[in-house]
Structure formats: structure tokens, C-alpha cells
């Protein structure tokens, strides 16, 4: 089984050529990394004095506190946005036009607004003493709207025969939704829901801009407090330490999404629904098949999203 149909299985000459390209590109990348490390060292970012602080229990407690604040904000925003998403999705799937239309307008508006602009509004107008709520409510409104679209797409993707059969045996609207549609939809939605949660987690860092004491802000306050060593401030150590924490958190959450996606795909009987027309595609990598599930590609499965 060849890895890709984009190129032939390399023969001896192509293998040699690929090896040369490989060596050149590896050297170029290593050179780049070496350059970065050299420059950082050269400008004195690795002086012991700038890193000493991270050994103290006091500092570690502060970092932990920032981490907990971030996680708390994330947890609140996640729970609230899922709840709001459920309500809005129910509204958009309603049979009554007077419920459906206002919800649609609401969802479209919040999805179209830059999150930071909404957080600024909430912060300056209502929560200037409590930036946490500005952040949580902003995140909830935005991510709730996105989640509601994911829910809606998931429920609409359940084959029509399911709800028809449920109505035929005399179930009521609520029963059809809770007993038949949601249990089946959740399975296909889960990766998208979790990727959106990764977005929520990433966006908690917007608190930094409204001076909310989350992880990144603690880091900055910290770097400003550390006395400069030979005229070099402790910003780079801060970025390295706090950046790694953030990236590890997000990576953990998004690998959970990928894992769930893989395991549901494996357990599903019959053809995977996401397979594009013709099934055979250019890349023989089934874990990345295009997902045509929802409108404007918003509910791509798997990895994290841009907004």
C-alpha cells in the first residue's frame, strides 16, 4: 500500500534524491533552531538570574493560581456555552416561526461579532470591576452560538427515517428529540464540540487584554517584576514557560477530540458518513477525510478551529 498517490513509489534514483532533499531540509530546520537558540543566548535570555524565580515555591504557587483562574474561567464558559448552545439549537429547530427567526438572528449576530469587541463592551459597560464575568459572558455568547450551530448540524445529520420511525410509533416531539435524535447526534458531534471547547480554552487568554488575572497576565506581571539582568528583561523565559503550559493544555484537549473521532469512526458499522464522493481520494489517510457535514465548513471534526 503506497502512502500517497501524488508521487510514484520512489525508485533508487528518486530515493537518493529524496534523501538529499531530506538532509538539506533537515539541516535548514536545525540551522533555524540553532540560530534562534544562539540569538536568544547571545542576547542574554538564558542568564540564570532571569530563570531563578521559577524555582521558588512562591512563584510556582502564583503560576498554579493563574492556571486555576484560567481553568475556572474555561470551566464556567464551557458549561454555560454548552447550555446556551442547547437552548439556541432548540430554538432554531423549533416548529414555531416566531421562535426560530429571533434565535437565528441572535446566533448569526453573535457568530459574526469579534469576540474581543464583545468582551470590551461587557467590560466597559457592565463589568469594569469584575473582568472575569465580562470574559465568561463574552465567551458564553460567542461559543454558545457556535455550539448551537454544531448541535443543529448534528441533529439535522441524523437520517430522516429515524425521526419518521419514532413519530410513527407515536412518540411526541420531545421524546423524539431526547430519546432518538440526540443520542445518535451526540456521537457524531462530539469531536466538533470538543474542538470548539479548545477554542473556548484558547480564547480565555483574551482576558490578558482586559487585564484579567489569568495565566498569561500572571506571566506578564511576573516578567515585569523580575529585575532585569544586564539590561535584559525576563519576558522570553515567561513566554517559554507560560506558552508551554498553554500549548500543552490545548494539545491535551484537542488530542482528546481526535481520539474520540478515531474511536467512533472505528466502531461505526457500515460506510463512514464523512467519506467524500467516490470514496477513493488522493491522500490515503482516512483520519483526515473532508467533512461535508455542516454549512460553511464550520463543524469540521477533529482539530481545533480558528475562531
Amino acid at each position, binding site marked *: 500500500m503506497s502512502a500517497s498517490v*501524488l508521487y510514484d513509489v520512489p525508485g533508487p534514483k528518486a530515493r537518493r534524491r529524496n534523501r538529499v532533499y*531530506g538532509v538539506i531540509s533537515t539541516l535548514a530546520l536545525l540551522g533555524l533552531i540553532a540560530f534562534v537558540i544562539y540569538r536568544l543566548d547571545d542576547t542574554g535570555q538564558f542568564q540564570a538570574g532571569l530563570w531563578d524565580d521559577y524555582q521558588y515555591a512562591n512563584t510556582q504557587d502564583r503560576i498554579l493560581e493563574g492556571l486555576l483562574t484560567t481553568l475556572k474561567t474555561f470551566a464556567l464558559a464551557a458549561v454555560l456555552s454548552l447550555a446556551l448552545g442547547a437552548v439556541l439549537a432548540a430554538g432554531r429547530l423549533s416548529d414555531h416561526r416566531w421562535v426560530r427567526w429571533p434565535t437565528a438572528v441572535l446566533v448569526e449576530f453573535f457568530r459574526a461579532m469579534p469576540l474581543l469587541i464583545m468582551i470590551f463592551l461587557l467590560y466597559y459597560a457592565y463589568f469594569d470591576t469584575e473582568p472575569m464575568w465580562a470574559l465568561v459572558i463574552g465567551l458564553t455568547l460567542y461559543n454558545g452560538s457556535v455550539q448551537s450551530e454544531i448541535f443543529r448540524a448534528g441533529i439535522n445529520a441524523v437520517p430522516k427515517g429515524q425521526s419518521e420511525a419514532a413519530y410513527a410509533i407515536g412518540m411526541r416531539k420531545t421524546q423524539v428529540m431526547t430519546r432518538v435524535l440526540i443520542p445518535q447526534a451526540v456521537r457524531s458531534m462530539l469531536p466538533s464540540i470538543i474542538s470548539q471547547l479548545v477554542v473556548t480554552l484558547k480564547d480565555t487568554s483574551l482576558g490578558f487584554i482586559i487585564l484579567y488575572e489569568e495565566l498569561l497576565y500572571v506571566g506578564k506581571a511576573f516578567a515585569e517584576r523580575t529585575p532585569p539582568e544586564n539590561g535584559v528583561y525576563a519576558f522570553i523565559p515567561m*513566554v517559554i514557560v*507560560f506558552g508551554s503550559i498553554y500549548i500543552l493544555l490545548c*494539545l491535551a484537549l484537542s488530542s482528546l477530540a481526535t481520539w474520540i473521532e478515531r474511536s467512533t469512526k472505528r466502531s461505526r458499522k457500515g460506510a463512514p458518513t464523512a467519506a467524500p464522493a467516490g470514496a477513493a481520494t*488522493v491522500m490515503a489517510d482516512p483520519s483526515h477525510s473532508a467533512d461535508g457535514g455542516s454549512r460553511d465548513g464550520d463543524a469540521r471534526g477533529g482539530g481545533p478551529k480558528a475562531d
Partner: protein
Amino acid sequence: MNVLTDNFAAFRDGFLKTVELTAYSSLLALVLGILIAGFRVSPVPALRVFGTVWVTLLRNTPLVLLFLIVTLGLPALGLKGWDSFWLAVMALGCYTSAFICEAIRSGINTVPVGQAEAARSIGMTFTQTLSQIVLPQAARTAIPPVGSLIIALTKNSAIASGFDVMELGALQTQLNADAGYDILVIFLWIAVCYLIITLTLSGLFRLLENRLAVAR
């Protein structure tokens, strides 16, 4: 007092700055995204690894953190002299490039396998197959997701206001600080500005999609 007429010049400048920021960053994101997508499907393992690492890291980095890395990191590397606007373009462009790479890769994925096979059988090399056969067809399916990514980029560009770029987000904070205007009204006008940009973009992408649509 009317917020818009009193501060028309400021609104115009902020609006243009946001448009400019979006335009340059999308250009960077598209170029980088296509390049990295090429890396990720290439026969050279080192490039594939680089592409995977690039995408995984950038997709899991909060944009604010990336802004911090760029604004604090580049001067530390001795690359001084960039102004805040170009630093913001770099952060936004690199961040979005990871997502665009994935959109293009799943576009490549929808091109029927016979296309690449036919290209190979008439002796095309990998670069030729990719650039002349597969990518042009992949572009069609990739356009709607790339469109929503560019719209997301427009919205994300508001973060640049926290890093000294005088665009719409910064205008909002500045006007909010000027007491005397209703904060909600300021928000509404800023919202209208963003809506103008995003609706234009989605219209443009729909046009492009219809233009390039081909019955398969």
C-alpha cells in the same frame, strides 16, 4: 452627540487599518498555508514532519500568546525595527496559515484519485502533479472553508488592538475611555464596521465559488 459623525475620521482610519491588516495577513496566511500543505503531502519526510509540527503547534496556540511571542520574541532575536502593524500581520498570518493548510489538505483529499494517477502516468513529477493537476481542483472545494477562515481572521484581527495597532478594536477602547458617549452605541457602530467587512468577504467568496464551480 453622535458617535459616528463626531469621530468620522477616526472611524475611517480604524476601518481602513482593519481592512489593511486583514488583507496583508490573509495574503501571508494563504501563501504560507499552500506552502505548508505542499510540505505535508510531499515525498520528503523531513518536510512532512515540519508541516505537521507547524500545524499542530499553531492550531493549539492561543492567538494572544502568539502575538506575545512575535512582539517579544523577534526583538529578542535581534530582529528589531518592525512596527506593531507588521508584527500583527505576522502573528495573524502564521496563526491562520495552519488552518488554511488543513483546509487545503482536505481539499486535496476530495480530488478523485484518478486525476493524480493520470498525471503520474504521463510522467509528471510530484511538483507538477500537485501544482498543475491537484491543487487547481482542490482549490474549488477549499474555497468555502478558506472563506470562513478569512472571516475568522478579520474577527481575530481585533486582538491586534491589545498590541498597539490602531484598528477598530483600539478605536472602541479609546472611545469607551472618552466619557460622554453611550458605550452600547459605540459598540453598535464598531459592529456595523465589522459586519461591512465580513459580509463583503463572504459575498466575494460566494462569487468566487460560483465562478469556479464546475459540474463533476
